[in-house]
């Protein structure tokens, strides 16, 4: 082979190498990666800070359409546990175009020995999807156990340590307490200063049951209900007036009782029981008029009204005086 041919071949390979691997050359040119630990030895369980940095030129990266990707470490690797990962921090250097990307990882190990943090891969991903990478240098860290002097005796467990009392431990409670006291004082002051409401006018005295019943009976008579042919309505209203009177005056649930039950239940009320025969005659006639379409004579209609009035008049002595709804309260005030 001729010398010129060999030289041409070398040039050709160099040219091809340059054409085929431009990206790598760009990458080397455009960022510098590094991993450093804050110590090279720890005791078992202690933590070590691993700082990952990449120095890049953002202008050039943008121009080449590249994106930087930091190494992604698993939670546990090669006897190391990742305790914490900080967010990616960006620092721009003054007077230069360069940017420093930084992430701090907190690692720990629970196995003694010399463990290596392997070379970590930083990647540059182009918009076209091609990937270039750069690796940090591996770091070896000694993880030492605690030296135990087995010749010495066991020591007792330490007692609980008391923490010195400080008023500042309770500042929040004191502020809340003071606020409550101030609020209570404020409300007290507000209600004291507020003008008192005018007292409500006393309610109108209730009409005694006796008076109302007599008034209702007179009204029924005046309406001339049976004269208009409404016999059933006449007796229904007549007995309802009487039953309501018994309910209010003697506390008998007369509206919910049948004639027989009512006659039975008035027995303990002596004054009413004395009118039992009159009441029985009236209620029986009313039942016939209400439920059996009986048409009593006009004399019987008038007699029924007369009986009702007589029963109410007879029981008048038992009628209570008129009372206002808050009569008890007024008595107490007096």
């Amino acid at each position: 082979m001729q010398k010129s041919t060999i030289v041409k071949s070398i040039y050709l390979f160099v040219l091809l190498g340059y054409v085929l691997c431009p990206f790598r050359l760009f990458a080397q040119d455009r960022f510098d990666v590094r991993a450093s630990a804050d110590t090279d030895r720890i005791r078992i369980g202690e933590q070590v800070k691993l700082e990952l940095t990449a120095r890049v030129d953002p202008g050039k990266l943008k121009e080449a359409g590249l994106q930087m990707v930091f190494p992604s470490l698993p939670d546990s690797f090669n006897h190391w546990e990742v305790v914490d990962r900080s967010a990616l921090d960006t620092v721009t250097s003054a007077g230069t175009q360069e940017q420093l990307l930084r992430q701090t990882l907190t690692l720990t190990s629970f196995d003694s020995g010399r463990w290596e943090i392997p070379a970590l891969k930083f990647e540059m991903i182009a918009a076209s999807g091609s990937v270039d990478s750069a690796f940090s240098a591996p770091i070896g860290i000694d993880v030492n156990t605690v030296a135990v002097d087995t010749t010495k005796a066991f020591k007792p467990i330490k007692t609980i340590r008391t923490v010195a009392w400080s008023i500042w431990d309770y500042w929040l409670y004191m502020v809340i307490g003071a606020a409550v006291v101030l609020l209570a004082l404020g409300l007290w002051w507000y209600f004291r200063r507020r003008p008192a409401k005018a007292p409500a006018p006393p309610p109108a005295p209730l009409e005694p049951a006796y008076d109302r019943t007599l008034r209702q009976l007179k009204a029924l008579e005046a309406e001339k209900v049976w004269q208009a042919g409404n016999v059933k309505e006449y007796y229904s209203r007549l007995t309802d007036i009487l039953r309501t009177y018994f309910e209010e005056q003697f506390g008998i649930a007369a509206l919910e009782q049948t004639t027989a039950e009512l006659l039975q239940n008035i027995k303990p009320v002596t004054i009413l029981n004395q009118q039992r025969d009159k009441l029985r005659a009236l209620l029986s006639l009313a039942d016939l008029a209400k439920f059996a379409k009986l048409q009593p004579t006009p004399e019987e209609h008038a007699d029924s009204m007369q009986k009702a009035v007589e029963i109410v008049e007879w029981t008048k002595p038992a009628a209570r005086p008129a009372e206002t709804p808050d009569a008890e309260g007024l008595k107490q005030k007096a």
Partner: protein
Amino acid sequence: MENTSQDIRQLNEKIHQASAFVDLLNLELSKVIVGQRYMVERLLIGLLAQGHVLLEGVPGLAKTLSIKSLSSAINAKFSRIQFTPDLLPADVVGTMIYNQPRNEFMVRKGPIFANFILADEINRAPAKVQSALLEAMQEKQITIGDTTFKLEEPFLVLATQNPIEQEGTYTLPEAQVDRFMLKVVIGYPTKEEERHIIRQNLNPGGMAAINPVIQPADIVEARKLVREVYMDEKIERYILDIVFATRHPEEYKLQKLKPLISYGGSPRASISLAWAAKSYAFMKRRGYVIPEDVRSICFDVMRHRVGLTYEAEAENVTTENILSEILNAVEVP
């Protein structure tokens, strides 16, 4: 047609005369039945109102004796069916049997073909037997093979339930219980009554015989008169108020009952209450219904038609308590 005052007066007189047999019946039955007037009265109400009676009480309270005596006094046919877990519907209604000499199937009628049936301990038989009986009660007819037989009138079923033994029983479902017009709960006789019962049973001459005082046809006629008993619209409203208060107690100022009632009375409850009230008025020899009639039979008509919630059962609230509250709250017309 609207009843006039004159019509009701005549009806009242007619019923007063026609119901005289009630006193005769009571007199005849008192020859052998001591106490238990309440049960006998309810049996007559069911008989006159074309309803059936579910009787709840411990054994030995003269249930069988009462209905047997009643059927004797009416000169009617009586059957007693002891319900057991192995009873079949055919044992109640009858079946077709093969007659070898005549080479044909013949109908053999069951014990249900009688005027008075005592279905003893109805809850001991499975549901299909209960259904067979309850269908017969409702339809008043029985179909065996291809032939349908009308049951003889009057037809009264008195079913009993023992409240103390519930193991191995088939409790009647609510829908079936609803078919009984009355559910009567009977208790023990008084000390004095029980003394009479002992004497009567140990009498060397044996117990007195019951003589027929009326015929089944008289009961059928009486039933027609019961239907004619006048019920005023005020009474109808009173019945509706009671039944509706079991469904919507809050509308009758009984909010406290709302969580205690799982379901109220059905329309059949209203019908039964009206029927039973008329029947009761007839027995009291009246041609019209008054509120007392409704109240007197209300517990027996309604107690098996009101469902209780778990809350009510936990608080030992009974349907009787609920019905008492309702009757004390609903205004009497």
